[in-house]
Every structure is written in structure tokens, then in C-alpha cells.
């Protein structure tokens, strides 16, 4: 259906949508390449006349902006990048793994209590602000505050309802009989789940992983209130580029934001082929 050439009005409309969608990304990338003098110039400078990597340098060498007379950046962003990678990857892997087990269990074994999945999802109805403070208290008393372990635990707890819910819908799409056929063919129940159903929901598994990773990667509130000095993540780091002398360092923030986008873009490109659903079509007669 995409082989037909687009009509002109439709092409214009789609073009406009693309422009509007991509503009913030364009702006961020451009800002990251601007020297401090161009950051909030009036009128706005669209494309830096003299692109520089000084903002990126500042992320890892706090003194770099000194050449422009801008100081007050105290810390390198290395810890934040490391922290974000560690917490997001670990928490996403755990959340998807536990969520997959839960999804299969809910889809295949629940004969009564259809409300259970809803109850799980309702755990996410609480605004994070409402549960953040109790967690600060609990974590302070258990020594989990300001540790990666603590942050990962929170991230798993918070994203688990999503991963369970999403994966359950994919598992539900695989007819139960396909697993049962494998059992009659000679697989154990567990092996049928693992070797029959899981490969069939591969696309859904990738989509869920990406979604949960984005949630974790961009989480701010918990990372802020549960960290003091030992741990840091990119969103928290971003908020710290405000100096007493030079105000907000837009260029440096933009540079970090560009770095923050990189893993998402890579992940998106890698798995886009798997995102399409419909693998199960043809399994059963209709």
C-alpha cells in the first residue's frame, strides 16, 4: 500500500508533521554546538556560525568553559552517564524478566480472579510524588538511600506493572493450544513457555524492553530524592548545570541531552524490525 506515490497535499501535511516533530531535536543539537555567546542570543541564532565542541568537553572537564570566562561547574558528568547506564540497563532487564514470568503466569494459569492484572496495574495509579517520600524514609533506615541497589529496586518496582501488563497482552495473543501442542509433542510445560511462546512474542519483548528502558532512562524524581553524593543519573545531572555567575548553562545541558539520546536512537534502530506484530497469524484456523 506504500508503493503508490503520495498526493501533493498529503505530502505537504506529512512534511509539516515531520518538521514540527524534529524541530526540538534540531534545536537541542544546534544548541549543543553553540559557544556560550550564542546560547540565548536575540534574535535567535539557528545555526551556529562557529560550531564548537566546548560544551561536550565541559561535561567531562568542568574547567573547559573557563576560556569563555564561565566557571562554577563543579563535577564531571562521567558518574551520571555511568549511573544512568547501570541503573537503566539492570532495572530494565530485571523488570522485563520478572514481568515476562508474571505475564505468562497471569495469561496461562489464572482461572479465577480476572481482576488480578488490573490490580497490578493500579499500583501505577499513585503519583510518584506521593510514594517518593515514604521511600526516602524507608531507604534512609535500611541504608539503601544513595545506593544504586536502592535506585534499581525502585525502578523495577515502578516499571514492573507496565512490563507485566504489556507482555501479558502479547502472551494472550499466542493461542494456548500452540503451547499445549508442544507439550503433547514432548515438551515440559516450562519448556513450552520458554521455547514456544517466548520466540513468538519476540517483537513484543523488544518493544516492552525499549519502553521500560525509556521510562528508567528519563526518570528524574526518584533519582533526585534518593541520591545525595554517591550516585547520580543523567536527568539529575542536567538540573545541576545552573551557576551563580553565568546562570543556566544551556549549551552544556544540550550537550548532555544529546548524549542521553544516543542509546535510545541506537536501540530504536536496532529493534525496529522486531516491533511489527502479527507473527502469530496463521497459527490457528479461523
Amino acid at each position, binding site marked *: 500500500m506504500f508503493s503508490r506515490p503520495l498526493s501533493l497535499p498529503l505530502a505537504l501535511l506529512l512534511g509539516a508533521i515531520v518538521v514540527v516533530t524534529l524541530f526540538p531535536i534540531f534545536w537541542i543539537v544546534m544548541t549543543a554546538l553553540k559557544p556560550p555567546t550564542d546560547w540565548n542570543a536575540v534574535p535567535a541564532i539557528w545555526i551556529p556560525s562557529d560550531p564548537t565542541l566546548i560544551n561536550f568537553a565541559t561535561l567531562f572537564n568542568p574547567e573547559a568553559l573557563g576560556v569563555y570566562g564561565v566557571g562554577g561547574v563543579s563535577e564531571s558528568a562521567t558518574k551520571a552517564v555511568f549511573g544512568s547506564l547501570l541503573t537503566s540497563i539492570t532495572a530494565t532487564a530485571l523488570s522485563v524478566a520478572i514481568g515476562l514470568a508474571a505475564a505468562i503466569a497471569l495469561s496461562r494459569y489464572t482461572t*479465577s480472579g480476572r481482576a488480578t492484572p488490573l490490580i497490578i496495574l493500579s499500583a501505577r495509579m499513585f503519583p510518584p510524588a506521593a510514594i517518593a517520600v515514604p521511600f526516602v524514609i524507608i531507604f534512609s533506615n535500611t541504608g539503601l538511600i544513595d545506593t544504586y541497589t536502592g535506585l534499581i529496586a525502585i525502578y523495577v518496582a515502578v516499571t514492573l506493572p507496565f512490563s507485566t501488563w504489556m507482555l501479558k497482552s502479547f502472551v494472550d495473543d499466542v493461542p494456548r493450544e500452540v503451547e*499445549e501442542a508442544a507439550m*503433547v509433542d*514432548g*515438551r*515440559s510445560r516450562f519448556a513450552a513457555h520458554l521455547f514456544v511462546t517466548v520466540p*513468538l512474542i519476540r517483537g513484543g519483548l523488544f518493544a516492552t524492553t525499549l519502553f521500560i528502558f525509556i521510562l528508567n532512562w528519563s526518570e528524574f524524581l526518584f533519582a533526585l530524592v534518593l541520591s545525595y553524593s554517591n550516585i547520580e543519573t543523567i536527568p539529575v545531572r542536567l538540573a545541576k548545570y545552573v551557576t551563580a555567575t553565568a546562570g543556566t548553562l544551556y549549551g552544556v545541558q544540550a550537550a548532555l541531552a544529546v548524549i542521553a539520546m544516543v542509546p535510545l536512537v541506537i536501540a530504536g534502530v536496532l529493534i525496529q524490525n522486531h516491533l511489527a506484530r502479527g507473527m502469530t497469524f*496463521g497459527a490457528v484456523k*479461523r
Partner: protein
Amino acid sequence: MTAMLALRAISKRFGKVEALKDVDLTVPRGAFVVLLGAAGAGKTTTLRIIAGLDEPNQGTVEIDGRDITRFAAKDRDVAMIFDNLALYPNKTGFQNIAHPLKLRRLTRAKIHDRVQAMSATLRIAHIMNRLPKTMSGGERQRVALGRALVRDPALFLLDEPLSSLDAMLRLELRAELKRLQRENGMSFLLATPDFDEALALADTIVMLVDGQVRQVAGPHEIYNAPADRDVARFVGAPAINLTAAEYDAGDRGRLRLFGAVFDAPETVRATFGRSQSFQAGLRPEDIAVAPADAGPAKGTISDIEKLGIRAALTIETATDAVRVTVPAVEGENHSVGDHVAVLPKLDRVHAFDADNGCRIG
């Protein structure tokens, strides 16, 4: 013939619903047994219990005399064809059929040979490299069949394997199924709601109504001597005529039927002995149509249905709408509105208890 499969007093509840009540069933080695019943009668549950996909609340499942009630599905040596086929959608025809062999750790060469032979038997060699979604309904059916047959298990369970196919394809595959089973001496238990399929295929039919076995009999017997009213109504199309009747033992025996009185034949007198009311069942082919002055039970033709070789007439008598089948040629001599006499073949009357529906005599 030894009993290959035996179910003893199987009961199964789902919540408050009693799906199976005290079901006994045997499949002799090399036999074709058909589980016949309407939707919801418990056919699929029975098959799932035998396959090990559901556990019974009571009773035992035995294969070759061994109690396997608590065995996992993979340890039972049965193959099952599901009503929705349940092919592996991400595997080709070849891989689908090869799957059970791979799990049994056969060598690649052996797997290849057996799948090849199976695909030749089922005439699906040309689709071995295709995914199920690109196959036609009949082809998928054959792949599912191949996946079950390739293993050589002790018992085959088939859950309405032909129900969603075209009429023509269904007949073709039905004949093929019977041939495969006979030629290879396999033991089949097939569930179907289609009595026609049951009569054509079965050595023995097990009739299931509301989770209970009502009759176990050969095709001939189940049609000609149904154990009760429900079985009689389920088997046969057009359905058997059921009507209130009365036997009067006086005056050499008389039968009141369709609002008329007939002399009772010897068979009926022997069945009843004393006067009583009952429910009479008469198959549509066991009633003849004659000119209006030819018999005491009269009526008007209200509908004529062409069925190919036969025509089915509906005749409104004083008491009932009677369905009668006649050869197609004879059907052309009648038209709607004709006044006729219905002549029941009285020695073919099935008698059922008016209250519980059980066969009398």
C-alpha cells in the same frame, strides 16, 4: 482386541460447573472410536484429560493397563490434533512436522526421511518450506495431521479436526483419515458434533450428553436403537419425529399416533404388554406418504425441502408437524398444500419413556 485406553469414572468440575460426570470410555487397540456430542457436552475436556492438559477431579486414565492419571502430557505417548490446529506459526511445514521428532532426539537424516515420507503420504510435499500463514485451510489441516502422525504414538486424539473445512474438502479428508487409521492399525479417538462424520468413521460411537455417556454402540445400533430420546434426536437428519403416543393392550393391541388409531404390530405388542402412554420416535424415512384416503392419519404438506437424492416433506397432522423423507423423484409429485395420509412403518417405531426419555424395550 485389548483396551488401549481406558477412562474409569472420570469426573471434572470447572468451578461450579460439572463438565464430566462419571465417564467410562475404552478405546481398543487399532479401533476408531468417535466421541459424539453437541457443543459443551464435554468432548474437548475428555480429550484434554487424556492428553494430560487437564487433570480430572476423580477417576483414572489408563493406557496399556498403566495408570497415567498423574503423568505430564509429554510422558503420555499420545498425539493430539487441536480444533484450531495450533501449528507453530514461526515454523515451516517441515519444521512443524519435525518438531516432535526433534524432541525425541532422532538424527537429522532420520527426521528428514520420516517427515519426507509423511509429507508424501499427505500430499503436502510442496508446502514443506512455507509458513502456516501462507497455507490454505486444507493444507494447514494436513500439516497438523502430519505433526501428529509422524510420531507413531500409542493413541491419537482428534478434536473436531474437520469442522472448519469446506464441505468437499471435509469429505475428502474424512476418507483419508479413515484410510490412514485402517492401513496403519492406529488407535483413534475423534471428537465431533457431526453425527454424519461419526457414523461414517467410527467402529464405536460414544455419545456424550451434558458430560455423561448416554450410549456406547456401533454406528448401526446408535441409529437404529438409540438409548434415549436425546441420542435419537441428535443422530439423523432430518431429525427423528417425536410424538406423544399411546398403546392400548385391548382388542389385539392398538396404537394411537398422529391423532389416529392403528393396529399394533407384533413387535410393539411384545414391547409393551400392558396399556401405557409413551413417546414414539419415527425416523423420517420410516414414514410413507400416500393419497389422503389411504390411511387414518391425515395431514397437509406445508413444506418441501430438496436434499439432492431425497426430498423432505413437512406434513401438518391434527397433532404434529411430521417430517418425512422420500426419494427425490417422488418428491416432485407433491406440492405444498396437498392433502395426504401419513403411513408410519409401525414395526420401526422407537418407544421412549414419556418422563425420562429412556428407550423402552
